């Protein structure tokens, strides 16, 4: 953790976004995580992504569960409401929050324990509901706050700090999300901001359920030799399938990839995702293929990263339950109350 707080004054040279805000306006409280923690890099990526998207900070709902990862919403967007809920139950809280107000952006941060163990049920069902949110898994394969036990995402054979290997099969959050029907599934690495930031931007703009599984090494309990979630291991075994560039609506497309090597997808709000293929055979719109690739690379001890799957037909929970465009919480109670005349008519029907 950094002990010296940065003064909250903006350097005059700092760039401003469309709202006239600087990147400092997207920061939060001081991180209390260990120095070098992967999660702090993700926090920085979130700050940068929100800044670049010119999101009004207070129009974001920061959602989390319990664990190191779930503390991080305290470290970004201090003018947004945060909901640090109970262990593994962030998805249900986000469901209720989103049902009440569909007009704010839900940015959720969870960990591998919070998602793949205690919260696997809620993780599965929030995907089925196609909740419009970005769900970031800060995945380090272990429980940090309770001193390094394996989590359900630890690979078979990966060793803990004492050298004991994990015996149980891992749950892969990306493969799991694909099977549950997620519309946007990506994987990244906390050490690769260049890859991560465009994915966060695209995930925030995607209408429907978007998940990014970010391998985020735990420097204290899971960064040693023999761990498959260490900085060194992931750097050596990462295979990037594509490079994403996210272009918000009405901005000029500046990237120029040779024909045939890139695809472009326009999202519901008019923004564009331009995808440069690193693996020519990888089609991110093919769910089955994505699942196959994830497992194939896993077999070869490779960590596949990039935009793994995208369903361009965006649909969310509100489409299924047919709510009006006006957020439910904006209806006044007197407007929602049928009144006495209606009640008298009901009385009559009960006689």
């Amino acid at each position: 953790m950094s002990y010296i707080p940065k003064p909250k004054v903006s350097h005059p040279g700092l760039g401003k976004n469309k709202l006239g805000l600087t990147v400092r306006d997207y920061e939060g409280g001081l991180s209390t995580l260990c120095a070098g923690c992967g999660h702090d890099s993700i926090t920085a990526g979130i700050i940068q992504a929100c800044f670049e998207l010119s999101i009004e900070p207070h129009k974001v709902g920061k959602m989390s569960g319990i664990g190191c990862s779930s503390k991080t919403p305290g470290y970004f967007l201090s003018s947004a409401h945060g909901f640090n809920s109970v262990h593994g139950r962030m998805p249900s809280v986000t469901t209720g929050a989103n049902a009440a107000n569909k007009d704010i952006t839900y940015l959720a941060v969870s960990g591998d324990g919070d998602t793949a163990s205690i919260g696997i049920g809620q993780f599965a069902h929030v995907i089925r509901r196609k909740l419009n949110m970005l769900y970031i898994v800060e995945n380090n394969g272990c429980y940090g706050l309770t001193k390094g036990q394996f989590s359900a995402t630890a690979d078979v054979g990966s060793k803990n700090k004492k050298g004991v290997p994990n015996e149980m099969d891992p749950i892969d959050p990306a493969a799991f999300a694909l099977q549950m029907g997620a519309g946007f599934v990506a994987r990244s690495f906390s050490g690769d901001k260049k890859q991560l930031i465009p994915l966060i931007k695209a995930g925030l703009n995607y209408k429907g359920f978007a998940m990014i599984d970010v391998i985020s090494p735990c420097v204290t309990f899971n960064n040693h030799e023999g761990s498959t979630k260490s900085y060194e291991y992931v750097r050596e075994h990462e295979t990037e399938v594509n490079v994403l560039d996210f272009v918000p609506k009405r901005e000029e497309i500046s990237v120029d990839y040779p024909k045939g090597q890139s695809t472009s997808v326009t999202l519901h709000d008019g923004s564009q995702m331009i995808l440069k293929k690193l693996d020519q055979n990888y089609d991110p719109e093919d769910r089955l293929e994505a699942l196959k690739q994830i497992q194939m690379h896993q077999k070869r001890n490779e960590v596949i990263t990039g935009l793994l799957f995208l369903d361009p037909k965006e649909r969310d929970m509100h489409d299924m339950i047919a709510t009006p465009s006006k957020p439910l919480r904006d209806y006044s109670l007197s407007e929602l109350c049928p009144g006495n005349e209606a009640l008298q008519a009901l009385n009559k029907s009960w006689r």
Partner: protein
Amino acid sequence: MNKIESVNEFVIRFANINGTGSASANGMLAKSFFKLGLPIGPKNIFPSNIQGLPTWYEVRVSESGYTGRRGNSDITIAMNPQTFKQDVAALREGGYLVYDSTRLLRESDKRQDVNYIGIPISEMARDNFSHAKSRDMLKNIIYVGSVAALLDIDLDIFHQLIKDQFATKPKLHESNFLALKLGYEHAKEHYLCPCGIKVAKRDLVGSNIILNGNEALGLGAVYAGATVAGWYPLTPSTSVIEAFNKYCHKFREEENGDQQYAIIQAEDEISAAGMVLGAAWNGSRSFSATSGPGISLMSEFIGYAYYTEIPMVLFNIQRCGPSTGMPTRTQQSDLLLCTYASHGDSKHILLFPSSVKECFEFSVLAFDLADRYQTPVIVMSDLELGMNDYVSEPLEWDDSYQHDRGKVLDQNALETTNEKFYRYLDVDNDGVTYRTYPGVHPSGAYFTRGSGHDKFGRYTEDGALYQENMERISKKFQTAVEKSLPKPKLNIRDANNKVGIVTIGTTYEPLREATEILSKRGMIVNEMLLLSFPFGPEVWEFCQKHDKVIVIDQNRDAQLKTLLVNDLQLDPNLLESICSYDGNPVMASFLVDSLAAKIEGAKI
């Protein structure tokens, strides 16, 4: 032979097999008594099963106005061979047994002191109705016809009820009318009609209505302006959500089909509770309906709501526990669970409706209280109240009523204030702090956390700051008791009475009857019906003023008594308890006997 002779005072019981369509036929008979101006108390006693198990429906008709469960039966329609012996045994001496005489009665099923009325129901159905599926349904209508003859009810009432019930299926009218006539005429031809028990038209129900508690709760949530319901199917609470859905559909749909509500069926009750909190945090009124097992699962979130101070409305339709228990039988055994649900120090506001009308009113009140005190409010109904029809005064709504959202700083307030907003700062010194909704204004932002926090909403592990905040939360409950919670209903027959009786909810109706019977016997007592928890000073006073206080519980362990002792620091020796917890509605006769034993012991 002895024959029960009675006009408008009797219990009729229907013994059926569940899944055979008997409910609507039996309900029709109940409705006919009501249409004739008589107070009724129907009770549905049903199994946790879809088809094939015994189910009973009984209706108490009482022109003197006692509609609690009386016990035994004066006339029984025994349609279930499985329970025949048991149903014969439960008849009062001189009672009437209506049975399907297509098959011969066994000697062992005969009793010398009851009147057997055989109607060849299956035979008539077979001879007159060719369609096998509807034949079973029409059998029920045949016995309705016979009962109408035996009780001297005009068939016209049933013709109208059939037309109402099958308003969209006029094809069914003819066959139902015929079934009715077959049963009616057979009884008239072969038996003395009326049989001894008679229904005579009165004008005792005025503008009253027939409604069940769950329907009233669900409707109350619509009137309260709730827009989000997170829920998981669980008997006997499911029909609260169904009612909410029905009335939202009726009142909250826009012309283009858009729905001004979100009813989300969760994967479990934990998730349902999370949805309630997420929506309430975000400014919607939200709720869940569940029963004991659901409260167990929701407990972690209930404690979270208590500590982070998020309004949370729950309807607990209590059933018979522990564990799965007897899920379709009634009990009030979640009192302690709900009062202190969750780990750590926590305590919740409870409301105890005792009637359908109170279900409606407390449903609305629960939302106001939850918003005003930013805490969970649990409405403690039970299966008996929730799933049975009651004769009730009509529901009322005052159009000038203002819903209370409590202390919320809106955009304008945040824009214009000079003071910095802190989520847990007790500005008004009543324990209740100000909150803001997400997305309204940057200066309204705060971080909701279940971890230790100080009055500024900041994370803390400082014991003094933690404690200061916990003390302040306690204060809210004092304010609630002083200013907002419904006070108990007292029935002081004589201020010098030495014995006082305390109860809640559905026990009240049979208690009212029992204490009136006891009064006639010279055992005059005072009563107190509790409507809310935490208890106010009136409750303490009532207990202190009597030498003996008898607390009536619908659970084994006298939970209400425990709560009184605990919350009011009462001497446990002051309180005695009577517990009725076999899963059936409390009977007045049980209360008369058990109260008499205790009152006589008190030597008054």
